[in-house]
């Protein structure tokens, strides 16, 4: 078991003919990810790494049965590419590019909710279910199949955490890159609930950081979860983030500092970790 992607996922790549698209398609195929095709408007009919290229996602879905897509396109094109994928019936969408305009992500989110699609990113390193599928730009070297899930806003932190779990033989069920952009396709809370429903996942490590509100809102679901949650927050010593004016302060309240996040998460029942090495120690204590 795993969440969101596994060896049966039929994955397509939007922007498969671009430099990054081609490069990572090859990597993902090598890992064993079932890449079934891709799109590049105006380049339908070509092939990339023996996978068919289509003009539109609808054609790709129709011809290949794709149900998962990863976007490798410049940020200005992400909004339409994401909406296209969602409308074409893609059920899980990975948005790799960073610097996607905030308003664009609001459009994507509306469409995703309407159609029941899960979106991660922008600015995510992707998602990996070790031994089954690697979707995005994460290095496979750090990962191995196991029993702990991770969800993180940062790719590099994911690697450090996964490496720690791999070296201590916990391994991972699925590692989800939530994304580093200010507004994200999914929240910590939504991904945590998916791990909660996954039988094989015995614990989840969530890695947040200073700024934003997604960590705080995770506190709404953690108390309801049976699966233990370990929480690590970057930015305990970072200079205080700038408030987005009075309106931002009013909307987001007292949220945002790393210490507050960590305190809130602990109060909600998560197990705080300050170093990577503390993760296996806590897991051991929890009997995972």
């Amino acid at each position, binding site marked *: 078991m795993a969440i969101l992607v596994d060896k049966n996922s039929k994955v397509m790549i939007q922007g498969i003919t671009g430099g990054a698209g081609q490069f990572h398609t090859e990597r993902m195929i090598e890992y064993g990810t079932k890449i079934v095709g891709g799109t590049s408007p105006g380049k339908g009919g070509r092939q990339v790494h023996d996978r068919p290229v289509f003009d539109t996602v609808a054609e790709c879905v129709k011809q290949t049965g794709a149900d998962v897509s990863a976007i490798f396109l410049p*940020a*200005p094109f992400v909004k339409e590419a994401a909406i296209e994928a969602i409308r074409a019936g893609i059920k899980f969408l990975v948005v790799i590019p960073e*610097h*996607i*305009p*905030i*308003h*664009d*992500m*609001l*459009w994507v*989110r*509306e469409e995703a909710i309407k159609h029941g699609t899960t979106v991660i990113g922008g600015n995510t*390193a992707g998602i990996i279910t070790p031994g089954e599928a690697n979707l995005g*730009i*994460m*290095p496979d*070297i*750090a990962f191995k199949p196991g029993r702990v899930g991770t969800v*993180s*806003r*940062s*790719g*590099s*932190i*994911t*690697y*450090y955490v996964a*490496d720690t779990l791999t070296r201590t033989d916990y391994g991972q069920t699925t590692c989800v890159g939530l994304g*580093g952009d*200010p*507004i994200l396709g999914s929240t910590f809370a939504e991904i945590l609930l998916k791990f909660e429903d996954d039988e094989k996942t015995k614990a989840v490590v969530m*890695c947040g*950081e*200073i700024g*934003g*509100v*997604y960590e*705080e*809102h995770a506190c709404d679901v953690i108390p309801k979860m049976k699966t233990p949650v370990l929480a690590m927050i*970057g*930015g*305990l*010593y*970072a*200079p205080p983030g*700038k408030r*987005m*004016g*009075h*309106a*931002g*302060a*009013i*909307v*987001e309240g007292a949220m945002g500092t*790393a210490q507050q996040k960590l305190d809130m998460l602990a109060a909600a029942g998560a197990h705080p970790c300050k*170093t*990577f*090495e503390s993760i296996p120690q806590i897991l051991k204590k929890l009997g995972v």
Partner: protein
Amino acid sequence: MRLYEFEGKQLFREFGIPVPQGRVVDSSDDIYEVVKGFKGPVAVKSQVLTGGRGKAGGIKIASGPNEAKTVADELFKLKIKGYPVEKILIEPALDIVHEYYLGVTIDRARYKIVVIASKAGGVDIEETAAKTPEKIVRREFSINEPMYSFDALSIAKDMEIPQVLLKPAIAIIQRLFELFKAYDAKLVEINPLVIKGDDTLVAADSRVSLDDDAMFRHPNLAKAGIEKRHEEGELTEREKQATDWGIPYLDLDGNIGMFPGGAGFGIMGNDFIHHYGGKPANFMDSGGGPSPERIAKMLVLLDQNPNVKAIFGARFGGISRCDDFAKGVIMFLKEHGLSKPMVMRMTGNMWQEGVRLFEEAKKEDPRLMEKVEFHGIETPIEEISKRAVELAWEAN
């Protein structure tokens, strides 16, 4: 990116939101003539990209041209939260009857555009929100829906705007919302929105923050001189350089140059340095799979920064292989040389090969690697952080 008050008011004017007629000056030379034109008392307002300007004495009222010039001369010498006053906005002084607050921003957790308004405007709006939340009006909008006039009317009524001013208030609320959407804003605020003595509404101040990542859609802003900048304050010279090179970079006030891979570990590394008693001189993000040229530029930024006493490097070889990373560092060392001590660690993809390349380079030319201590997976990242703090301490 934050706009100056006068730039925000330019956008307000474009959208038909009433603002006082104003003039911006960047020296006090023209002030006498400008103020004479206004025929009456004026507000002399420092233009800085930070809040708390009023409390810091950055806004003054002057009764006429002579006083205005005196006041402006003082303001041009002022620093507000460290930012020098380089521009001043002159406006006729307002006869204020009442101050409202009106703002539009995004609720990231709910993925909605939110209008926040209050009958109790002015500087203490956050306190109002905390102490008397019933005075705060809040409305949510999906990105794909317009704000109708009945929505605006309902907000205006909850703000307790007098019935005779409902019509102009509706227009202001709708237009502020439209501006927010049209310019990819993160925040637009009118604080205060003022009823003047002549029973008209006017936006006495503006606060506008736009989404840097959407600037490609708004070339007209660059034409009007509104360009990428920090959320607060202008960029430092080094930040400007980094921006030109496309490297996310922020000057901090410590002395350890941070040379990490990835934004996430950038933040975490900062924590580690602090944990061991050090202070980073910067924040930096290599981006995924940086080229050797990019790695060289990152090191240039650190090496030329006089505040940096030592450099802390960390690389988790993911997409970018550690051997490629080592090649980039060696390239830099050969081309530029390194004037500060550096400790770094490589792990992940091809880390052994990276370490091998460094050792090879050292054998070839020991002086090249003189200031570099390099480690592999065997040394925990915590040890590397501690060592960086020591190196900075020694260098002081």
